[in-house]
């Protein structure tokens, strides 16, 4: 199996990885870099549990090949908190009780962060649309949507 040597940035760190052609970004993160915060819920682009940011865009990492990420800037759930301070979306989802089993949470948080980066003042419909690909079987979503609303407010107050 041919291995490809790729270099990329993951959560602000420079990484060099040898990956087989068929390896997905999800597999690379979990198996090569031991970043297991990103979850595998379907491996088919249908659940959003594997969502990470690639160059600022929220993508399903199970649908992206690792080799495509040469030179990319990847952010996973492990990269959201800075110096031990939680990202406003992380803090807000805790405050609103939007975490139950927590399996969808990493993907939700990344989708929410990507949304707030491109649209700091999203409407409720914007939030619903941004999270529509992130399935959650536990919470019923309401507290998650509220958490993103709060995070947007908080972020605005900070800036």
């Amino acid at each position, binding site marked *: 199996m041919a291995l490809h040597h790729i270099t990329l940035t993951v959560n602000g760190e420079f990484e060099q990885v040898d990956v087989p052609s068929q390896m997905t970004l999800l597999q690379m993160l*979990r198996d090569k870099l*031991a*970043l*297991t*915060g*990103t*979850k*595998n*819920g*379907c*491996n*088919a682009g*249908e*659940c959003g*549990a594997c969502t990470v940011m690639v160059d600022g865009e929220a993508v399903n990492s199970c649908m992206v090949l690792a080799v495509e990420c040469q030179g990319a800037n990847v952010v*996973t*759930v*492990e990269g*959201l*908190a800075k110096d031990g301070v*939680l990202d406003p979306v*992380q803090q807000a*989802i*805790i405050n609103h*009780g939007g*975490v*139950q*089993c*927590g*399996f*969808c*949470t*990493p993907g939700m*948080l990344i989708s929410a962060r990507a949304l707030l980066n491109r649209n700091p003042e999203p409407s*409720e419909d914007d*939030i*619903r*649309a941004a*999270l*529509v*690909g*992130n*399935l*959650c*079987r*536990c*919470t*019923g*979503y*309401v*507290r*998650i*949507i*509220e958490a993103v609303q709060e995070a947007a407010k908080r972020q605005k107050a900070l800036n």
Partner: protein
Amino acid sequence: MTPNQPATSVPHPIGDSVTRVDAKEKVIGAALFSDDLQFGPGLLYARIKRSPHPHALIKRIDTSKAQALPGVKAVVTGESFPGMTGLYLQDRHIFCRDRVRYVGDPVAGVAAVSEAIAEQAVELIEVEYEPLQGVFDPEFGATSEAPVLHPDLGKYKVQNFIFPKPGTNISNHFRIRKGDVDAAWSQCAAIVEHSYRIPHIQHVPIEPHVAVAKVDENGKVTLWGTSQSPFAQRNLIAIALGISQSDVEVIAPYVGGGFGCKAGVSMEALAVAVASKTKGKPVKLRLTREEEFYTAFVRQGMVAHFKMGCDAQGRLLAMQNRFYWDGGAYTEYGVNITRASGYSSSGPYDVPNVKTDSFCVYTNHPVGGPMRGFGMPEMHTGLEQCIDELALAIEMDPVQFRRINCVQGGDTLVTGMTMHPTGLSECLDKAAKAIDWGRKVAPSAPNKRRGKGIAAMWKAPAMSPNASSSAKVALNEDGTVTVSVGGQDIGQGSFTIAAQMAAAALGVPIDWVRVATPLDTNYSPYEWQTVASRLTWSMGNAVAAAARDARQQILELVAKAWNEKIEDLDIVDGNVISYKSEETISLKNIAIYGLPLPNDQGWIGGPVLGRGNFMPTYVTGLNAETGQGPRAVVHYTTGVQAVEVEVDLDTGKVQVLRGVGAFDVGKAINPEMVKAQMEGGFVQGMSTALFESLQLKEGVLQNPSFVDYRIATTSDVPMDIQSIIVEVPQDDGPWGARGVGEHSMVPTVAAIANAIYDAIGIRVGAPPYSAEKVYLAMVDAGLVKEMEG
């Protein structure tokens, strides 16, 4: 706080909405789930050869080509595993031996150095089948014309409250005979009769099943996995393999949603069986999402026939129910769903005459298992629509009808048990008020119709009568507290509840308490299973007892050291204080090292370790012919949901605009977490009402993916979901608490169906109420004209 505080006062943090103890690690991606555990380069990967036939005899299995494939480390078949497994009825082998009974039934397993090689090896296994006629309908399956799927039913081991009928496909027949139904019909002013067909659905936790098994040279089994039931798995795997429970260790990290499908034993036994042939190397089996849909437990399908009648004043006089549960290929767990729906078959109503026959029927469908609600959502879906119909028949408001009939403390229930105090009528009044019952609101557009619906529910924990819990509370050097439990946190928040209870019972701040994870049957105290919404109540009792035990040890120690009476001492905020001498000492000075006696006379005490257990001792058997007995269950949680919906006449789309839930939880230990359960359950119920159905065609699942099996997303949920907590204390619950996790999806489908009826005047029939189905029903009823083209 004084030592003689009145019994009604509740210590903090009971009743406080503290933050989940696992929230932070879950939001930073640090919480470990089974798939996240690292096993190093020795890890092997398993794949399973599965039956393509719903029903067939196995004539020959040839594994030689698979064995010869480089990278393959083991190939196993049912030949090596004669033992049987099953929770209430031992009707399954780990791998099929002579017969397959559903599409997906495991016939062989492979371990290889990679998943790809394992998959390739599975393809190389040759199996010759002789296909047999299948059973795809439970009502047909119960007849004498149906082929018998388990000829050995009479030989299976079964718990004494399950009644199989050998020679048929009926693996349990539960009966209720209360009063005289036949005599009652003539006194009824109105009678309604309806049949409902409830489809199979899937739990679809976002985390698929994972099991990693290792069998060492001494035969000791270690299993890491996605488990609601580490102890039940230990027990059942030991039984199936014929080894000691003490030689099985089950380690269960965080679970990414369970809803029942990770209870009991299913795919875990496959991983263990494969690992038994890999010489100590761990083997990982991970279900694909597709496998998750049809090889994990499914929620059983059901065909239900209801007949009920009331007098002119609206008093329910009689009910007659026939339930045919589509138990699937193996009904080891499903037999008890059949029983639970039988002993609760009156719904939450006081009915003098009830006759119920609830049948668990083998079919060639996926294996039915426990799912959130354990038969109650399925049963209430039909029953609560009939209640509305009956109210309509005597021209009574459905809320008023329920008010007259709803169960009250002191009522003689359908099994003869006396009902404990319950807040159902309060739930009913509060839910009706919150949804503005009786106030018509104009639809948002001319092509829409708006309606409101309400439904009530009850549910008891369905379990073995003596299912038990235990807990340990240990103090650490700095006075902090480690609580060990065997019940799992599958998202419902049980670890947080355990921490709150330990803090309250011991007298320490909540942030001093840690819960020991992961669960490990070698170190965690015994817990039957994380099912039946029983942890807050049962495990909670054990935790409170363990914390009180630790507290007692500490107080005895300090009393001795200070030469004071225990009654004068208390533990407040992590300090032992004396109300008499006004002395105080921090727990950190006592927890491990004990205390010095006065005048350098030595030491007393030692590490503090509290223990507690809880087992209900009062549940009795029920008569096999009548279902009557003094106490069928431990208790019932009751509640009501109400919804407002809009139906689009052009498309048939049903939009749920808002929802209200009111449940009697006894005592909300953590009100926000209780509300989160009510919301999550409501949306799960709504999802099953509008979207969900496993489409089975001659036993073959047509929609095993999230694209074809849709669940609710952010685009479907109403933001306006009100959750109302009612608190009528449970006499043997910790601080009065009883469970609510499952209950919140029990009445949802019925409430939505009743609202659809209110909006368009049509009973759509079997859920899900998809846009297409609702539209066609409206066309049928002449409400809309089918669009041309």
